[in-house]
């Protein structure tokens, strides 16, 4: 399951999509919106993507992980407005053994965070920033990126 979706992510649905009697272990990672990052409070975030390329990259990463660890994998990212505690991303991998499941699941989230063209804009009490990698860029208006 490879998806970009505006609606809330259901991690159990994703886990079930990987079920089978041959997999001894399934590793699932859920990335959630934090209320506080460092000292900055976040009230809401908006994720935007270069959608066709993001999906293509997600497919590419999924294929790599599936082949390298003989895994069934899933990568799902949410777009649009999210609140603290909401799930932004799920990566999951089902393998015969747990070491592979952890490795594949970790690979997917690490590569997604490095290469998949999705961006987070954070809205706090008195300012809004767009994150570009580790750096933040202040934006003047409350306009959402790409909306």
């Amino acid at each position, binding site marked *: 399951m490879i998806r970009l979706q505006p609606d809330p992510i259901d991690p159990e649905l994703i886990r079930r999509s990987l079920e089978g009697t041959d997999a001894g272990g399934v590793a699932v990672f859920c*990335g959630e919106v934090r209320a506080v990052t460092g000292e900055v409070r976040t009230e809401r975030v908006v*994720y*935007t*993507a*270069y959608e*066709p*390329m*993001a999906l*293509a990259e997600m497919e590419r990463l999924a294929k790599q992980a599936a082949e390298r660890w003989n895994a069934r994998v899933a990568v799902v*990212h949410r777009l649009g407005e999210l609140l603290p505690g909401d799930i*932004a*991303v799920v990566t999951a991998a089902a393998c015969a053994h747990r070491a592979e499941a952890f490795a594949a699941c970790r690979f997917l*989230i690490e590569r*997604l*965070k*490095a*290469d*998949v*063209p*999705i*961006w*987070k804009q954070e809205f706090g009490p008195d300012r809004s920033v*767009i*994150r*570009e*990698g*580790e*750096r933040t*860029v202040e*934006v003047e*208006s409350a*306009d959402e*990126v*790409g909306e």
Partner: protein
Amino acid sequence: MTVPVLLFASLRSKHGDCVPVELPAGATVGALKSVLRSQGLWVDGARVAVNRAFATDEHTIEQRDEVAVIPPVSGG
């Protein structure tokens, strides 16, 4: 040739969704990057995507390619 270049993240918030960029025929991604830098359409760590895949500096851009500037990403 004029190539429309898609922008994202802080570049989009400053310069809009898409800007036309004038390039000589057969220009490479490396040449495009020089033009973009000179016009302030670049940020540190950005990469160029051609037809929805990251492209190296040596890659030649064709008239009909879908070209985008990808600032460092922040999904996940």
